[in-house]
Each structure stands twice: as structure tokens, then as C-alpha cells.
């Protein structure tokens, strides 16, 4: 079914397209307002002090404000939904020797805890790199602004300033993202997440077996058997490949059925 963009547009704008409202646009409206506030302070500062020192000082304050504003922005790599507290109970298992009948269970719990610790550490590394990039972006933004007198404020100028800030932010981020520390931290984040998911899945499957419930591993085994069977059948010369349905074929069948009735 074709999507209806206009209906979607109506849906989210009708849910409250106002600052602080429930609309999906609310974060961007908030961002816009806060950017505008920082920009107004910049224009006021530049206008109320003798040039050229005024422009430099006002630009500096503007850059610092942006650095603070964007330092808390959730960038796409923050996938785990936060790294606070949730690992604490699991860490208990990390520090205990695995003994007795539940040894395998304890070992798995330790592996899950260790994977979660690695996820948190990788996420902290990524956040540090991101914060450094925002700091570098703020410095570049200040340098660009200080190079010329502050323009007269207008909606167009504000939009241009925002564009300049984004350019600085993307330049700084791109340098960081191409670096070895970033790719290492991202890989560690993904690899630890894979390990965590694998151990968690094994744990859930263990419980499922105790309750005699089907598991994904069993379904996978059956799927692979079916695929192998299909390949085997295709390899036999006497078995022709099943014909895929064609629109013409469907129409012909429908016409034949209609003719019979």
C-alpha cells in the first residue's frame, strides 16, 4: 500500500505542533528556541560593547552556550537506552566463583554481566569522543564569528548562524568519526552487544527447554533442513523447478474459473 505523506503530516502536526507539545517536532522546536536565545545574547553582547573586542567576546559566549546546548543531545549511537544502574545486580555474579549444580547458569550470568560492562564502557568512550567533537565545533564556530562584526539580527541571519554551527559540528564530528578510536569504540559497542544478546538468548532458551517450549534454535534447525531438502530436490534432474506465479497466469486461471461458472 502506498504511504500517504499528507495524512502522516497531518497526524503529527495535529498532535500538537507547539513548543513543549507532544508533537514529534517538539525537540526541534525546543532546540530552535534555545539556539535563538543564545543568538539573541550574542547580538545583545556585540551591540552593547565597543568593537572589535565585543564581537569576539560575544562570539565566545555564543560558542560556549552551543557547546553546552549540544553536549546533552542524544546522538544515534546511544542505542542501549542509558547506562545507569541497570548492570549493578548482574555485577554481583561477576565477582562470585561459579560453583555447584548451577555453575553453567552462573557462568552465563557472568558473561552477560561482562558484556553489559563492555557495552557501557564503549558507550562512554563514544560519548567522550562526541563531547570532544562538540568542543572542537564550538571553538571553530567562535573563530568564524569572531572573524567579522556581528550582523544585524534577523530571521535569515539566525538561520544562517544555525547553518554555520551545523557545518562546524559536522566537520568536527566527521574528523572524529574517521579516527581509529571512534571505529574501535563503535566496533566494541556492537561486538559487546552481540555477545550480550547471544548469552541472553541462550539463557532464555535454557528456560524454554525446561518448560518444553519451542526455541528459535529448533526452528532454525528445521528451516535449515527444509533449505537442504529444497536444494537436494532442485539438484535432481527429474525435478523441474517450480514455476513462479505470474500475473498473466493468475489472470488466465481466473478467466478459466469464470468461464466454468
Amino acid at each position, binding site marked *: 500500500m*502506498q*504511504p*500517504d*505523506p*499528507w*495524512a*502522516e*503530516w*497531518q497526524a503529527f*502536526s*495535529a498532535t500538537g*505542533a*507547539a*513548543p513543549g507539545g507532544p508533537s514529534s*517536532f517538539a525537540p*526541534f*522546536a525546543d*532546540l*530552535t528556541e534555545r*539556539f*535563538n536565545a543564545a543568538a539573541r545574547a550574542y547580538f545583545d553582547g556585540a551591540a552593547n560593547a565597543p568593537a572589535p573586542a565585543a564581537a569576539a567576546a560575544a562570539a565566545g559566549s555564543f560558542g560556549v552556550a552551543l557547546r553546552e546546548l549540544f553536549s546533552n*543531545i542524544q*546522538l*544515534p*549511537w546511544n*542505542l542501549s537506552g542509558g547506562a545507569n544502574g541497570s548492570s549493578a545486580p548482574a555485577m554481583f555474579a561477576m565477582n562470585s566463583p561459579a560453583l555447584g549444580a548451577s555453575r553453567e547458569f552462573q557462568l552465563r550470568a557472568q558473561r552477560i554481566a561482562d558484556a553489559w560492562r563492555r557495552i557501557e564502557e564503549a558507550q562512554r568512550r563514544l560519548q567522550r569522543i562526541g563531547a570532544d567533537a562538540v568542543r572542537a565545533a564550538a571553538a571553530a564556530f567562535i573563530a568564524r564569528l569572531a572573524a567579522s562584526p556581528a550582523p544585524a539580527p534577523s*530571521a535569515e541571519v*539566525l*538561520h544562517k548562524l*544555525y*547553518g554555520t554551527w*551545523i557545518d562546524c*559540528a*559536522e566537520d568536527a*564530528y*566527521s574528523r572524529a*568519526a*574517521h579516527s581509529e578510536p571512534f*571505529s*574501535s569504540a*563503535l*566496533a566494541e559497542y*556492537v*561486538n559487546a552487544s*552481540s555477545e550480550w*544478546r*547471544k548469552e541472553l*538468548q541462550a539463557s532464555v532458551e535454557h528456560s524454554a527447554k525446561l518448560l518444553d517450549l519451542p526455541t*528459535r*534454535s529448533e*526452528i*532454525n534447525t528445521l*528451516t*535449515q533442513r527444509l*533449505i537442504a531438502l529444497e536444494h537436494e530436490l532442485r539438484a535432481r534432474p527429474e525435478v523441474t523447478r517450480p514455476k*513462479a*506465479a*505470474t*500475473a*498473466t497466469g493468475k489472470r488466465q486461471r481466473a478467466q478459466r474459473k469464470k468461464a466454468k461458472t
Partner: protein
Amino acid sequence: MTPASSFSALAALAAATPGAAGCSEREVVWQSGKIKLFRYRPIARPAASAPLLIVYALVNRPYMMDLQEDRSLIRGLLNEGLDVYLIDWGYPDGADRFTTLADYLDDHLAGCVEQILKAHHLDDLNMLGVCQGGVLSLCFSALHPQRIKNLITMVTPVDFHSPADLLSKWARKIDVAAWVGDGNVSGDVLNQLFLSLMPFRLTQQKYVDLLAANPDRAAAENFMRVEQWIFDSPDQAGAAFREFVTWFYQENRLAQNRLEISGRNVDLRALRVPILNLIGKRDHLVPPAASLALRELVGSSDYTALEFDLGHIGMYISARAQHEVPASIAKWLAAR
């Protein structure tokens, strides 16, 4: 940037009646499982060339090729009189987790090609591969050169280790086998990775710009169509994804002539058909150098590269692309 005026504009827009998406007329001419082969209804006098099969990427939905009437590569091609087919790979689910690249090439893509050749009583056709679909097209063409009359690649990576290729740098240290496990790969997670390539522009600026632009109904519809497409990302069949990332992004086998599909070497030097390589100079997903490498790798003496001052998505839907890209393709095909 005046949010208040933008919000009032949005409220006014919300009161308007919905508009229909402008897509070209087409019909399913072949189907196999989730794979559908579409043929588009002609809208101009037929050009004297073989049918053109568009092979789109697995990671996004192919309707980006025909988004709306005034932003449609397919419509542009139809206007040039070309007979256009398109493969829709569908949405892989849990039953497709063991589907491999060989399955995509030897069963799905080959099935579509055979269907078209049979319907037209031809031995070969023209193929247009887009992005990852271009990589599949190159592999298919190298394995079945007799089936291809002319090959067009569009924003297609060939050398996956070019210096500006950020995705490749990120992918190289990831344990892809562990990531995939025995399952599929979530399209949502892949989207997060794509957004991370330019997070400030893609997760903030474009929305702020939209508010600041005080969009009219047409602009809002345009924006929402693209937004819909960006986040309409199919999950990826696990085995094929693992092979693609390992063989192409991590090991760069295609460019190094070390790629094997089902035991057959994918040797690009075997490609001797005319090749048109379309490149976006401002492509952040597929850096130009990744595409331009094709020239040195293929055996064809009839090779043309056209660079457009456009980004990855702009190559399909920008106003400039509508004027330049379909006409360039049609002109190139007409000369062969």
C-alpha cells in the same frame, strides 16, 4: 527561524485535505516468494532499445525510484521511451534468515532476468543497478555476461576501502558473524548507523530547516515522502548481510578480484559490455572514489563515467537529477 510562524503554518496545513502520492502505473509481471518484478506502463513513444531492468538495493525500499510525478527517475526514463522493469525485494522475515547472496543472484535476480528475456524473446537486456543493487548487478553481469547488453551502475561502491568511506572504516572491526548470529539484521539498527554518518544534519538540521521554511502543502508532502522512505527500512536477510559486509566492506573482495559466489569467481574483467557509471560528487554514503574505481577493474573498452554535483539521494529525487540523469541514461543507451 521563527518557530511561532512555522507552527501556525503547520496548523493551517493540518486542516487541508490529503493528497495522493504520484507514482507511475505498473503491474506485477512475475513473482517468486517475496520478490516481485514490476513492469511500468509506457508513457512515451518506445525507444529502440532493449528493456531496462532496475536492480535496487536490499537495504531500502525501491519506491524511491518513483517517489512522485515530479521526482521520479522511473518516470524520467519512461518519458525517454524506455521499457522499464523494477525488482522489489520485499521485506525479509525470519524465514529468510539463511538466504544468501547466491540465492539473491542465482534465484531471484536471475529469475527476473529470465522472465524479461522470455517475454521479449531476447538474449540480453539493459541493467541499471542502484547503490547496493549496483554491486549485485556487477556480480550478476560478471557471472552471466551473455545476459547483459548494457550495464549502468548508479551510486555504486566497487572499491570499499577508499579513504572517505566511513561505513567501511566502521565495519572493519565489527564481528559481523556475531552481530548477525543466526537471525536477520534489523533495518532500524542499520538506520541508526546511517544517521550516525552525519548526525547533526540528519537528526537535527533537516527538521529545524523544515520549521524555518514555513512549508506549504507541496513542500510538506515532499518532505514526508522522503521521511517515510528513509525510515521504511526492511530487515536484512542475515546470511546475505553477513556475506555482503564481510566480503565487500571488510575484505574488499570485488575490487581485489577475490570474490566467489557459489564457487564461481566474480571477475569484473569478464565484463566487456558497455558500462555507464553514474556518480554523485557529494555522496556521503558512497564516496565518488569508491565508484570511480570501476574503470580500472572491468574489461570493457566502452566505459563512461558521469559525475553529477549531487548527493546520494539527490541522484534520484533532486530537481536537477530529473533533468539530467534519465536523459543521460537514454542518450547513452540510444548510442549503443
